[in-house]
């Protein structure tokens, strides 16, 4: 905009106005981060923190491959969760925004309820349902199917199921908002231009949903990266993800420097992936960024 006057940091008025925000950001966000960073240069001996100021922790982080194995596994699981959530959420959100407009509010209330129910409860419920002698197998065998057909509890599949179940609502909501904001005449225009239903989806609906897809993906990705309950309860803890590794490091190993370093690694890698993808899908180019 032409009427936007470039403002200098030497402008005392601006400084005063920005001060509260700057202070808040510094104390609530930056300071803990700096402290976490400083912590990584210490050591832990016999469950006690020692102010050693050396690179022992970072050496450990970069010399032990298993931290990275777990991180890779975490990123993979998070990416899979994002993909599955989007695939599941798109038709639901599309239906909500178009076909089932009449029951829109009822469905939204239901999803919200499913959303706010205690996550622990839901995950334990799934464990109970999927167990060898759980309700799923009980139901299947009672209609004459062989016993123990549902046998994927305590595998990565069960973890994935739990994460998708817990997080898909985020995708449904963000996609729903995106789809319901699309002008109906744009879809008609695509039909009119000669596009079939599928083509109109691909060329118009989907690109216009980009902000929703993106918002949902980032939310789900970051929440998945931090998931610990699902891999523990449904995955049987055998295939831990980063959050569990960090918890173990802080709580059972009482190794705060190492825990801090692992946390920073996870943060940096997650943020890097998010930035990389935002560049790749080119939100800026299409000018669709919110």
């Amino acid at each position: 905009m032409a009427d936007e006057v470039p403002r200098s940091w030497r402008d005392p008025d601006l400084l005063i106005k920005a001060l509260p925000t700057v202070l808040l950001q510094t104390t609530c966000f930056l300071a803990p981060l700096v402290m976490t960073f400083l912590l990584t240069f210490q050591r832990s001996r016999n469950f006690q923190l020692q102010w050693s100021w050396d690179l022992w922790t970072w050496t450990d982080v970069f010399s032990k491959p298993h931290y990275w194995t777990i991180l890779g596994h975490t990123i993979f699981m998070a990416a899979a969760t994002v993909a599955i959530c989007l695939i599941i959420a798109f038709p639901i959100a599309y239906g909500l925004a178009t076909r089932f407009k009449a029951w829109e509010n009822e469905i939204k209330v239901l999803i919200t309820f499913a959303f706010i129910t205690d996550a622990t409860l839901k995950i334990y419920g799934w464990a109970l349902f999927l167990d060898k002698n759980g309700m799923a197998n009980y139901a299947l065998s009672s209609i004459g199917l062989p016993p123990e057909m549902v046998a994927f509890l305590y595998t990565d599949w069960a973890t994935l199921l739990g994460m998708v179940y817990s997080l898909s609502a985020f995708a449904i909501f963000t996609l729903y908002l995106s789809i319901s904001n699309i002008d109906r005449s744009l879809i008609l225009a695509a039909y009119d231009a000669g596009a079939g239903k599928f083509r109109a989806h691909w060329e118009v609906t989907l690109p216009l949903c980009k902000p929703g897809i993106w918002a949902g993906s980032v939310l789900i990705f970051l929440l998945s990266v931090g998931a610990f309950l699902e891999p523990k309860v449904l995955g049987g803890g055998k295939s831990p993800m980063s959050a569990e590794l960090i918890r173990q490091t802080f709580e059972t190993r009482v190794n705060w420097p190492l825990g801090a370093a692992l946390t920073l690694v996870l943060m940096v890698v997650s943020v890097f992936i998010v930035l990389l993808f935002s560049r790749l899908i080119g939100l800026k180019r299409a000018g669709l960024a919110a």
Partner: protein
Amino acid sequence: MTAILDIQDVRKSYGSYAALKGVSLSVNQGEFIALVGPSGCGKTTLLKQIAGFEEPDTGRIAIAGADMAGVPAAKRPTSMVFQKLALFPHMTVAENIGFPLKLRRTDTAEIKKRVGQMIELMQLKGEYLTRYPRQLSGGEQQRVALARSMVSAPKLLLLDEPLSALDVKLKKVLQAELKRLHRSVGVTFVHVTHDLEEAMMLADRICVMRDGAILQLGTPADIYYRPAGSFVSGFIGETNLLPITISERTSSGLIYQAADIVDTDGRIAADLVAGKVAKGPALLMLRPELLRVLPPGETADGAIAAEVTEMFGKGGTVQYRARTPGGQMLVVEIPGTSSLPMRIGDKVRLGFTKKDIYVFGVEA
């Protein structure tokens, strides 16, 4: 001339609401036809049936002789310019215009060429090609929308009030543009508008609709001077409707009486009477500009005595309101340079020529 579009008794209901109550219409190749009417008259609904966004409940729509029943919008040789333009915000101008061609698997070089032609035809600047729609002005967006609709060389161009959101000045420019475009490409235009004046300017024929039915289909002159009834006559400009009583109706014309009118013979020829008019009460239409002030002693085919009550200057013309002894209000418009100016309170005689009047029945 062959009919490019043939609509036979099309009906469409939404639940209990009947949006189209049996519409039939035939449009000739290369014609510019306007569908006019107040909102809710069914004009947009009719357009949707033609475009194929909806299927009529009953009736038949044929385009270039082919029945369109069951043919989806994508497969119809029609193209629509939407009221809100519906330009794809995530595509550049070039991508927008080329979109219908891309869907038809046209090769890239050909698309580029045709898009270039369209840009030229629409008098858009070449540098706009890489811009996004929201970076263009309203009028430029309009041209892009037209270009996108024309690029695939449709047999029928359907325009759904595309000018309604523009300011008056821009509207005038684009109206002229549409007219030029129509002449230069020779495509059949079906233009929906609620603005009869716009329709008058643009269309070869006008189809006036109301409550899901066609009231009148005719040339702009027909609609203006030979309206099918008081609704059509009142839809554009101002008009004087004087109640008359028809005492005799024959094939050659009619004989009538009217309280305020001094007529030389009391007869009106058949070609000045709407078809359905029978004996009994009817309305006589006189456009304000066809009334003139009679100097003392001069006679006309008909004359009405009245007293001037108000006057408004309108630049080139002056408009007067005058009351007859019977209490009927009349609108008179005479050139500002008239040799017989009137003042408020003047008692005058207003004369008219027989060929300028039109008679139609009283509508329920």
